């Protein structure tokens, strides 16, 4: 008989068993291949996501100081060194010492900047771009500048206007006239250039001095003699949009190369691992600094890529294990069915090699069918799961990933099939040695070894989070499989003990059923191994998949909540006159001001802790707006905010009726000394008002002069919430006043105050004060001695403090004493999640005034909120309302939208789909394997069952006991599988969730959906029981034939 014909006849003789083998191989190959194809796509998506950071975080920055005439050569050399970053956008920002502004207060400063690349990142709102002054050896007296809108508004200057800038170091130096030729506004506040010129976003920054600007001159102007030394920063922002996982090494090498070149160029030690010595600088850059997060970013992306790969490799390994077990079951069934044929062949002299050859032929045919099926189906499955790419194309045949994924498991399938066939044939001849082998395996502590190895691998897996852990070691990859295998062998050892108890109980009873089931289960545990493994793996995979899905949902929600801080967050990124309007917009959209808190933010260093984010907000509203995860707090959130509010004492204020749209003030100042320097135009004044939230807003009032004037403050756009009160009126005095009046004796006199035309009794609420910086009227401040603060654990630990401890917070020149009232793990929106301080903003403002801070400090510290956090009843509607009216320079972040976007992230969505795919495959393989092992079991028991029949046992009862035995095996194994699944899920899921490259703050908490899991395992038990019953029903009823089984002729 020809080989092909023989193969066809052999395979056709037992179609059901051959189909079981084929389904096992095909399902395994399709899913493993699809996982690998998916892995490549998800890895690329993960890498893209990891590299998709703001420009400032992927920049290469070179900074140093230059003197006039040195810019040209240095600029060329730096740009040449940056050249390997092909496609990078290079900007250059030069800043110089601030100048005074003639005619304004002594604390007002003009910041000059020489910017190359401004036109690419900003748009003109009026006028034109500046031109360089005519070349001259002498310092120019006039220079063209452009100003940000906010600065121009604050300085009340427009294109065509000018300002005289004074030299703060040398008062005798000639003034420079800044001719304002245009105004601009940033296009994108996240552009890297603004991190070198942050003032451009605000236009005005008030702390102890008030800086205006930047006054941007034409590129290269600083290289003349306008300024002395300037600080120049080059920033190269590479385009990483096209970098895929395969290109990371190249991108990293280019970054290292550029940094090495720049360090060599500037004479810095080359610390990139190439050489550690510093050579002479070849450019004239003084105090140079070369910095970049790019190598760390590429490293991080590599870790993300590796993590995604290992994350998908883990279920693939589990699936291969499960597929192998199912295949062993099916192949064993086929070998059992062919038992007679095999014995006949042996009797006729067939050698083991000949039998192996026949088995190899069968296995290769099945593997080829599996490979062809996988090639056809796997790309389709991948497309269906990932939702992107082509359904199928011939190019897939040239995809090395496909073949790399396909060939090893196909070869494994061939090996498993052949080995099982030979093993079953041999073991039937030598059952005693087989049992001895199993006893040896169980007794040798193989289970303990596997569990210990699995536990060690799991520990290693958890350490994988550490940045810099780049390698994917085999132990890490197969950790879950090791744990599963170990626990399975352990279960094989423990389950018979349980069965023995049942058997002993049954043996003492008169009937046969309980005793029979117990005996069979307890004494034939080895034959249950396949079933055990299949069910364990299916349950474990399901637990991991459902756990992963739920955990991703939870983690994404947590991280989105952390990133936005509240369901809605509006951020004013570019300063403008619209702050109050923005607040009012959010209030209206939220429908209830109690669901909105303005947020003030700053970043400062606290002792040795750098970059601590300080958030100030209305703690009363924060109790409703913020919803931090309870396990990150040391007390319920309501209690934490209650502690913040416990210290709130805002002091006095002149109460205004309702929510006034305007306040009219009749005031003057009285100069009791020489008043020759005080012109009739007076000095700019501002009114400080506090609304129901307790937050103080400073409103321009116009100029207060020596004669009585009525000035009006427009409150209509401030978004104030009633009741509103006036807490101060201040008049900063310019320096020149003191130049002419050495002993100032000014006093501010408020005659009347009206809100929307209604006179407000003044009483004695506002008391006069004055010093060198100005004069003001102020309500009595609060008596809070230390501002309650919530601090993060990292900050508390670094400052060696805790709840009840006191620390000092530097705010400008004030030293604000704060008392720690709660310690939390992290604060939402903090730049470094573990470094944050949360304060009640009204308390801070009131306390800061009381604390004071020296003669240069203004009368009242006004901390202008730049953000509004809201928790509206209907976030979707509120977001829509806010979005419709969002002014320029502000952005809206919606927690739910961010979460939805992240759930759609290719990594998260792909991983969820992949895990569910693996679970479906697990169930399919478990079903096939269970059916095959049940059929084999039924066949193995047929002779015994026939004997029972001959002894008078009803056939339906025999079958019922057998089915019950299988159901019990499945049920008990499901319980063990659930435990195993939970262990595996807790180990593996955090890694799978962390694959999208986003920082996991707060840390991932594994969620196991109890209801879903219960439903899943019940369905599994029912489905497998039904399969078992159906298979056993089909067992032979040829009683007489069975009774003669094994007889000699």
């Amino acid at each position, binding site marked *: 008989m020809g080989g092909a014909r023989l193969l066809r006849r052999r395979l056709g003789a037992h179609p059901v068993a051959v189909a079981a083998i084929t389904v096992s191989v095909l399902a395994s190959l399709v899913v493993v291949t699809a996982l690998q194809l998916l892995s490549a796509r998800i890895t690329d998506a993960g890498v893209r996501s990891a590299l998709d950071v703001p420009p400032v975080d992927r920049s290469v920055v070179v900074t140093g100081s230059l003197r006039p005439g040195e810019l040209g050569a240095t600029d060329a050399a730096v740009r040449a060194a940056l050249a390997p970053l092909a496609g990078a956008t290079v900007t250059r920002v030069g800043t110089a010492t601030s100048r005074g502004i003639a005619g304004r207060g002594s604390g007002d400063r003009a910041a000059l900047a020489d910017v190359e690349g401004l036109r690419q990142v900003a748009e003109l709102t009026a006028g034109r771009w500046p031109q360089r002054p005519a070349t001259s050896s002498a310092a120019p007296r006039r220079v063209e500048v452009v100003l940000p809108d906010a600065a121009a508004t604050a300085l009340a200057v427009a294109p065509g206007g000018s300002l005289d800038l004074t030299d703060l170091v040398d008062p005798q130096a000639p003034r420079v006239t800044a001719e304002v030729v245009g105004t601009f506004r940033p296009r994108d506040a996240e552009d890297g250039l603004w991190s070198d010129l942050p003032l451009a976003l605000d236009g005005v920054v008030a702390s102890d001095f008030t800086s205006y600007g930047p006054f941007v001159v034409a590129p290269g102007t600083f290289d003349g003699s306008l300024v002395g030394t300037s600080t120049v920063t080059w920033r190269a922002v590479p385009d990483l949009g096209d970098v895929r996982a395969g290109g990371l090494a190249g991108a990293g090498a280019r970054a290292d190369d550029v940094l090495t070149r720049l360090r060599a160029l500037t004479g810095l030690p080359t610390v990139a691992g190439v050489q550690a010595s510093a050579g002479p600088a070849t450019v004239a850059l003084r105090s140079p600094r070369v910095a970049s997060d790019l190598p760390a970013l590429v490293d991080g992306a590599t870790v993300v890529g590796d993590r995604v790969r290992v994350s998908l490799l883990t279920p693939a390994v589990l699936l291969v294990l499960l597929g192998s077990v199912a295949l062993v079951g099916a192949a064993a069934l086929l070998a059992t069915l062919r038992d007679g044929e095999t014995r006949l062949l042996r009797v006729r002299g067939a050698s083991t090699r000949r039998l192996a050859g026949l088995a190899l032929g069968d296995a290769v045919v099945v593997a080829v069918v599996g490979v062809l099926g996988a090639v056809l189906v796997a790309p389709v499955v991948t497309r269906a799961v990932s939702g992107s790419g082509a359904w199928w194309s011939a190019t897939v045949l040239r995809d090395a990933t496909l073949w790399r994924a396909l060939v090893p498991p196909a070869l494994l399938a061939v090996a498993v099939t052949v080995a099982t066939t030979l093993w079953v044939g041999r073991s039937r001849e030598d*059952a*005693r040695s087989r049992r001895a082998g199993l006893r040896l395996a169980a007794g040798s502590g193989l289970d303990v070894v596997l569990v210990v190895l699995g536990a060690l691998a799991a520990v290693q897996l958890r350490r994988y989070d550490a940045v810099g852990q780049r390698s994917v070691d085999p132990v890490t990859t197969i950790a879950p499989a090791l744990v599963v295998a170990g626990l399975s062998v352990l279960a094989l050892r423990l389950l018979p003990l349980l069965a023995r108890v049942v058997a002993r109980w049954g*043996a*003492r*009873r*008169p*009937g*046969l059923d309980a*005793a029979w089931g117990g*005996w*069979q289960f307890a*004494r*034939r545990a080895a034959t249950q191994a396949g079933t055990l493994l299949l069910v364990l793996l299916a349950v474990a995979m399901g637990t991991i998949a459902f756990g992963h899905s739920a955990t991703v949902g939870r983690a994404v929600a947590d991280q989105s909540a952390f990133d936005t801080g509240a369901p809605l967050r509006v951020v004013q990124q570019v300063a403008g006159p619209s702050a109050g309007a923005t607040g009012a917009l959010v209030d209206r959209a939220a429908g209830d001001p109690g669901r909105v808190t303005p947020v003030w933010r700053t970043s400062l260093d606290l002792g040795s802790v750098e970059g601590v984010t300080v958030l100030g907000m209305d703690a009363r509203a924060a109790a409703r707006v913020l919803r931090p995860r309870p396990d990150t707090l040391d007390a319920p959130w309501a209690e934490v905010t209650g502690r913040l509010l416990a210290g709130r004492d805002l002091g006095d204020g002149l109460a205004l009726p309702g929510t006034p749209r305007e306040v009219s003030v009749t005031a003057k100042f009285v100069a009791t000394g020489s008043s020759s320097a005080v012109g009739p135009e007076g000095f700019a004044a501002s009114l400080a008002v506090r609304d129901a939230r307790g937050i103080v807003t400073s409103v321009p009032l116009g100029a207060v002069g020596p004669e009585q004037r009525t000035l009006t403050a427009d409150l209509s756009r401030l978004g104030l919430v009633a009741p509103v009160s006036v807490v101060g009126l201040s008049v900063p005095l310019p320096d020149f006043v003191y130049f002419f009046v050495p002993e100032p004796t000014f006093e501010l006199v408020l005659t009347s105050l009206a809100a929307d035309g209604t006179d407000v009794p003044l009483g004695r609420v506002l008391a006069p004060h004055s010093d060198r910086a100005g004069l003001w009227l102020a309500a009595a401040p609060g008596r809070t001695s230390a501002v309650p603060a919530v601090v993060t654990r990292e900050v508390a630990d670094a400052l060696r403090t805790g709840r009840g401890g006191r620390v000092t917070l530097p705010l400008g020149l004030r030293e604000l004493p704060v008392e720690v009232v709660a310690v939390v793990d992290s604060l939402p929106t903090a730049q470094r999640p573990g470094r944050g301080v949360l304060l009640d903003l009204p308390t801070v403002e009131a306390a800061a005034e009381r604390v004071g801070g020296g003669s240069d400090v203004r009368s009242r510290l006004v901390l202008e909120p730049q953000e509004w956090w809201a928790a509206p009843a209907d976030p979707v509607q509120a977001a829509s309302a806010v979005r419709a009216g969002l002014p320029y320079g502000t952005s809206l972040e919606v927690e739910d939208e961010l979460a939805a976007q992240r759930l759609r992230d290719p990594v998260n969505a792909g991983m969820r789909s992949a895990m569910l795919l693996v679970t479906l495959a697990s169930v399919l393989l478990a079903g096939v394997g269970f059916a095959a092992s049940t059929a084999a079991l039924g066949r193995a028991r047929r*002779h*015994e069952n026939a*004997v*029972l*029949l*001959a*002894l*008078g*046992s*009803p056939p339906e009862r025999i079958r019922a006991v057998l089915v019950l035995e299988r159901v019990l095996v499945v049920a008990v194994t499901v319980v063990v599988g659930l435990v195993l699944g939970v262990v595996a899920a807790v180990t593996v899921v955090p890694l799978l969730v962390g694959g999208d490259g986003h920082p996991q703050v707060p840390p991932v908490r594994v969620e196991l959906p109890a209801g879903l899991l219960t439903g899943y395992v019940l369905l599994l038990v029912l489905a497998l029981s039904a399969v078992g019953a159906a298979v056993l029903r089909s067992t032979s009823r040829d*009683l*007489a034939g069975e*009774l*003669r*089984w*094994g*007889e*000699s*002729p």
Partner: protein
Amino acid sequence: MTGEPLRVREVHRTFGSGETAVHALRGVSLDVAPGELVALRGRSGSGKTSLLNVIGGLDRPDAGTVHLGDLEVTTMTDADLLALRRGPVSYVFQSFGLVPVLTARENVGVPLRLRAVDPAERERRVTEALEHVGLGGHTEHRPDELSGGQQQRVGLARALVAEPGLLLADEPTGQLDSETGRDIMRLIARLAKERTMTTLVTTHDPALLAVADRVVEIADGHLVDAG
């Protein structure tokens, strides 16, 4: 239970149909007296086992009747046949028919468990049966720890423990050496006599026929010699 008379009349049994039909029994009639040990001799495929199966209710004849005492086996329902095999009729198989994972004691106890006999009574009878077949010292051994002869003794003890009226033994020595086979046959004969048990044994080993009260030859489904 004491032996019952066995009466077989014109039993026919055909397997398959058409050209491939195999006529296993062609009008077999046989009487066996209570306590009598009849050896049924014949070649392989002659119809020995088919006749035993029909008598024991494991198979139904196409025609003819089988009476055991007052019971007509051939008209019994399936449930009655099961009850028949749990009580009046017991089997001994050529391949012993023992459950490998059960000890000798547990194997022997199976028929009594099927009848839900009180555990204490069951254990007493099992011990007695094992002692009767000479295996009092091997009660906790599993089949693979026993020799072929010992395994068949366990099979015999299992058949006897139910105290049947009719013992059907199909080639009980077929897988034993001749010396052991003779021992087993002598044991069957002794027990049949002690218990006045009607016994029908199939064999094609002439050396073992000596212990039988009567030998019946069967060939091509016919009884050739009933003397």
